[in-house]
């Protein structure tokens, strides 16, 4: 592995300042005319590549033991579940795993840890997984960190997978780091793009600094390579017609499943009714005049699994409760998707929703202020467009349902 060496002889006030400025992480300090690289350094090597020539050099260490990458094979997807109910991120990871595996001729495995899950494991084969490995023990009924890590460790030792993909769910974010630390290997969180090199190194791209920069990360000299991916980032695998994979139960000495954690009670979460937390928001404005108009907007919100919100005038007519108001005098929302229906876009309203990820605005007036900030400006009458939109969404959902149950 390489280290950075500062050639102090070449340090001048000018080069020093240049380097301090160039470092994105504030990792270069000047002390008594000497340049020092501090612990903020992320080894991005910008100082070597873009800094004044020869001041900071990359020194390769030849003594590092190289991992034998040929000993590690296959891509494993960790099956995320709560009491056997599989989280859909799992199918998305299988989809990505299959795509990567093709490039380097790897098998795709699933690792399923739980209790009474063998039947459910078979269903995973329909997505084209080569082998599902199952640890099925009553001690694994609930997610508890020590027994789950133990089973995971046992699996890695037996199968030696080169790559392990884990959903960035609450469980995955707790389990993956534990496993990575146990094997002293690399783990990259919340990857948005994954690819693979011929030498089986996983190319991991993820956002940092709140999404303001992207980093390309590799685990070049250790195996397995672990990465987590959030739900709805990758495309789900489709079902295959010919099932060729199999389910294999792995044995472990269950007396080793000790835990310092005891799960006492599990309660279903109450449905989120806070517009600030919603991922999808349908917002209505003055164009909505009565209960019937409102029903149309509600139906759109429901069918998208989102929440209904509104502008201030609607609150004033008493059509909608005040906690659903967006804007300076209401709440600020930052959903992944907001669809505004007949909202002209006052400054006060826009201030409360401007940082939404995708803004679809439908309004009759082509000059409406909302179109200045919308990503999709749709000029038209909401009473004509929305009913059609609802119908189309229903159609799309139908198609998806049919694909899911294998009718096409």
């Amino acid at each position: 592995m390489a280290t950075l060496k500062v050639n102090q002889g070449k340090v001048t006030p000018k080069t020093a300042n240049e380097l301090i400025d160039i470092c994105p992480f504030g990792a270069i300090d000047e002390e008594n005319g000497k340049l020092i690289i501090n612990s903020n350094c992320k080894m991005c090597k910008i100082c070597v590549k873009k800094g004044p020539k020869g001041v900071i050099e990359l020194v390769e260490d030849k003594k590092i033991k190289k991992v034998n990458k040929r000993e590690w094979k296959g891509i494993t997807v960790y099956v995320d579940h709560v009491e056997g109910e599989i989280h859909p991120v799992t199918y998305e990871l299988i989809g990505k795993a299959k795509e990567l595996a093709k490039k380097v001729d790897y098998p795709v495995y699933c690792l399923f840890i739980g209790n009474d899950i063998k039947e459910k494991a078979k269903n995973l084969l329909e997505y084209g997984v080569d082998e599902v490995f199952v640890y099925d023990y009553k001690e694994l009924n609930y997610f508890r960190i020590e027994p789950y890590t133990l089973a995971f460790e046992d699996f890695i030792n037996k199968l030696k997978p080169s790559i392990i993909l884990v959903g960035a769910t609450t469980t995955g974010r707790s389990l993956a780091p534990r496993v990575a630390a146990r094997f002293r290997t690399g783990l990259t969180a919340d990857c948005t793009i994954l690819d693979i090199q011929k030498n089986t190194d996983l190319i991991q791209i993820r956002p940092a600094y709140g999404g303001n920069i992207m980093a390309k990360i590799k685990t070049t000299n250790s195996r397995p390579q672990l990465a987590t991916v959030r739900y709805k980032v990758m495309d789900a695998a489709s079902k295959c017609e010919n099932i060729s994979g199999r389910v294999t139960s792995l044995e472990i000495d269950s007396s080793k499943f000790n835990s310092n954690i005891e799960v006492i009670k599990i309660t279903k979460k109450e449905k989120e009714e806070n517009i600030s937390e919603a991922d999808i928001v349908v917002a209505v404005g003055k164009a909505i005049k009565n209960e019937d108009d409102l029903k149309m907007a509600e139906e759109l919100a429901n069918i998208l699994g989102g929440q209904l919100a509104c502008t201030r005038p609607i609150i004033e007519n008493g059509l909608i409760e005040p906690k659903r108001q967006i804007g300076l005098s209401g709440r600020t929302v930052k959903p992944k998707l907001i669809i505004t229906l007949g909202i002209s876009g006052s400054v006060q309203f826009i201030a409360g929703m401007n940082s939404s990820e995708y803004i679809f605005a439908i309004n009759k007036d082509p000059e409406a202020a909302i179109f200045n900030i919308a990503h999709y400006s749709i000029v038209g009458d909401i009473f004509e467009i929305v009913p059609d939109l609802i119908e189309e969404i229903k159609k799309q959902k139908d198609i998806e349902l049919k694909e899911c149950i294998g009718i096409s």
Partner: protein
Amino acid sequence: MNIVVCIKQVPGTSEVNIDPETGNLLRSGIDSKMNPYDLFALETALRIKERKGGLIKVITMGPLHARDVIKEAYMMGADEGYLLSDKVFAGSDVLATSYTLSQGINKIKPFDLIICGKQTTDGDTAQVGPETAEFLNIPHIANVLNILKIRDNELIVEMDMPNTVEIAKINIPCLLTVDKDIYDPRLPSFLKKISTRDKKIEIFNFKDLRDKNKKKYGLDGSPTQVEKVFPPKVDKNKEKWTGDSRDLGEKIAKELKNLKFI
């Protein structure tokens, strides 16, 4: 109860831009602050201390100016502060950071409870807490929403799961990562600022740590390598659609499907 809180100094803003010509990061000033998520961790520790008594130690890793976040913790009520700082630690990824922290925490034993924020605002990984717990060989629970009971040898906590909330009992010693909003963090106190102005901050260098194998720290101890950083692709063009309403309805539905909202 002896509580260790892990904190981190992060840039004052996550607004970073990249020079499109040189590819360099342009930071607006070098302002830095305590990772906002750590405020919840520290507040949790302070509440536990108020109920059960004890000692709160904060620990961080970073350059010397990371002392500022320890001072901030003192102003909120932390009792002792420790800074892990050495050029050997440079280039640490999650694994090396967690290992260094665990070595530092081993130096400030005994502890009953370690509390970490859910994640940082610069790295955003949420991984350092669980990895540190692994190196210390203690159990952990992530995403703790609420601490229901504190007993001498165990805690009962509420944890956030995708569709459920779990109540679990965990033996001490253990590590918790707490969600934001677990408690409202208090503001730094001016009186404490004055009274802790000269309060000691102990600095641990590499040579102070028990494990002296340099290959486990900094860049050498980091299996992941950042190959490059670049600006995110801005692919959100602004589009204006007009025309027949039936077509528009269909067009919107298709786009929503493309964007995976359906």
